[in-house]
């Protein structure tokens, strides 16, 4: 194990106090800038084109999502999770819904769990496609972004078929799914799985062996494994540095222990390794989706039937008195989970996404905290940026794969 006694803490205050000398130039990158992926602002101190200091300033997209969570009933907060990481909405839903289910002690039926996995992996693909497109665009490869967005449309079509929405899907519900799976959906997903490996090959043909791409990514933004652990990085940022940590393997949720997949690890910890890791993750996601489609039962319940916490089926509401009353209470007053606190993490496309909920027994969470992976990962930017060139900064922002909605919340 790493000897943490040898480590010294980060002194961020000292970084901020690097006042520019006369030879240096302070460049304010953002919040309006084409490649800060939204409204990130970076205060760069440059000497020529070499970055002396880099100071990310966040908060331009802060909407107080956590505070909103403390004033909404449990079921009402699901749409808000869409709006944190808006390029991977279903994964956010999943993290929150699983946390609430853990709090209430309920479990979705097997069929719903498989479909949750399929949707979560499709989300990972969609998110990685946005990452790949914008990352390549930042480094100047114009066409890749259009190819990735072309293929992302197919995933969004699947989402639309499944739940009617494309971007902010509000897909997962507490307890499972209340609507039936559209009958043509499995074939749509299968068709996509047949097509997508060819698309990955296409991206790789354009980038993986491209000398300019290699020059721009190899040896740039190296994070050593211990540094990555100390920063608390997760996701591809951590695995690119060769640390084997994937929530799906380490703390399996849903039915990830029933499918076979590998966790790709990098060997050098640079931008190129994180690129390779994410590309391989896309292949593994396809593997997971295919296995899920094989294993998922064709029929069976999609919604848990727990009298207190889950919205009753529509048919029962219309026919039985008890369910009609429960439905009324559920809608008007909300449900009250037991007292206690709970943390549940899922492997989001960007890393470990955790929801921490403190319940005081009322229908509204006492405290809701989102551990968003990009917020934590973004902290490694100053470490990677020091001594890099100005042009590397955009590659580094791209390699962290941030979505400002999730960073600021």
């Amino acid at each position, binding site marked *: 194990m790493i000897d943490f006694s040898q480590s010294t803490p980060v002194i961020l205050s000292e*970084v901020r106090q690097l006042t520019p000398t006369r030879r240096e130039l302070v460049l304010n990158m953002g919040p309006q800038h084409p490649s800060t992926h939204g409204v990130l602002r970076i205060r760069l101190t440059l000497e020529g084109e070499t970055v002396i200091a880099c100071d990310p300033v966040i908060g331009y997209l802060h909407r107080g999502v956590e505070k909103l969570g403390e004033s909404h009933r449990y079921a009402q907060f699901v749409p808000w999770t869409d709006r944190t990481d808006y390029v991977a909405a279903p994964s956010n839903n999943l993290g929150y819904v699983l946390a609430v289910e853990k709090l209430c002690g309920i479990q979705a039926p097997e069929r719903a769990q498989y479909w949750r996995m399929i949707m979560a992996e499709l989300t990972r693909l969609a998110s990685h496609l946005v990452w790949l497109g914008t990352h390549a665009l930042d480094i100047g490869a114009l066409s890749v972004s259009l190819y990735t967005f072309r293929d992302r449309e197919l995933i969004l079509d699947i989402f639309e078929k499944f739940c009617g929405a494309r971007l902010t899907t509000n897909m997962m519900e507490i307890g499972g799914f209340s609507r039936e799976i559209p009958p043509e959906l499995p074939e749509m997903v299968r068709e996509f799985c047949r097509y997508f490996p060819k698309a990955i090959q296409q991206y790789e043909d354009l980038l993986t062996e491209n000398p300019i791409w290699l020059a721009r990514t190899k040896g740039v933004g190296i994070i050593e494994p211990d540094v990555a652990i100390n920063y608390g990085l997760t996701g591809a940022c951590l695995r690119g540095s060769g640390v084997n940590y994937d929530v799906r393997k380490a703390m399996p949720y849903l039915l990830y222990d029933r499918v076979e997949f590998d966790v*790709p690890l990098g060997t050098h910890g640079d931008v190129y390794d994180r690129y390779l890791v994410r590309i391989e993750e896309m292949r593994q996601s396809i593997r997971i989706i295919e296995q899920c489609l094989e294993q998922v039962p064709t029929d069976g319940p999609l919604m848990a039937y727990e009298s207190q916490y889950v919205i009753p089926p529509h048919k029962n509401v219309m026919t039985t008195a008890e369910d009609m009353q429960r439905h009324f209470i559920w809608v008007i007053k909300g449900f009250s989970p037991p007292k206690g606190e709970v943390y549940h993490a899922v492997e989001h496309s960007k890393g470990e996404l955790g929801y921490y909920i403190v319940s005081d027994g009322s229908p509204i969470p006492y405290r809701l905290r989102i551990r968003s992976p990009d917020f934590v990962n973004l902290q490694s930017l100053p470490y990677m940026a020091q001594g890099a060139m100005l042009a590397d900064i955009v590659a580094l922002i791209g390699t962290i794969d941030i979505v400002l909605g999730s960073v600021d919340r």
Partner: protein
Amino acid sequence: MSLQVLIFSLLACVSILGALGVVIARNPVHSAIGLVLSFLNVAAIYLIARAEFLAVVQVIVYAGAVIVLVVFVTMLVHPDDLPEFHGRRPLRIVTGLVLGVALLLEVAAAVLTRSLSGAPGPWTDEAVAAVGGNTQALGQTLYSDYMLAIQLTALLLLAATIGAIVLARPEAVSERVAAARRTLTISLAHPRGLDQPERPPALPRPSDGQVKPAGSGRPIVLARSANEFTEQPAWGEWRTP
């Protein structure tokens, strides 16, 4: 002929105005623009004298390279660090005047003796036409009569280049960057600097299918369970349970 004189006068006037601009302008970039203007007009005067090669070289070397570098440096340097050009220092003014007048006299003397004596050089119009033009004539003269001078100039430029490279070694940058880095580095186990070579790839030793070539000679390690490769103390030392 009168047209030529007219054009020459115009060019000469603009050239002098440009030169004046160099001296008068307070902004160094404006000075540089004045100098470029002056140089371009001189190039045009060469053109009138049918010295096309000289004109083009004047533009490429002086306007295109030397002044560009001047502007480059001016933009890089902080305005406060620039020397004060317009201070009222009597000594400077006197020195400048004396040098300027001396230069003027020299040029005048040279021009006057040349036009007074009127002795034509070896390159008459016929001689130039015989070798195929002005450019060819210039080339022949430079590379036969003045061979030694050319070689010496080349040597001088080479020395200057080497000197520039030695002076511009990027030490100053890396020191400060390294200092800033030290502040940020979390773990002392792996100090890093700018000049460190890329670390050798660290691979798991056993297991065949777990190392997958991914691209450009770079492998990707595929972990099958959460327990693999978890005890890696540093780069290069991968252990399996």
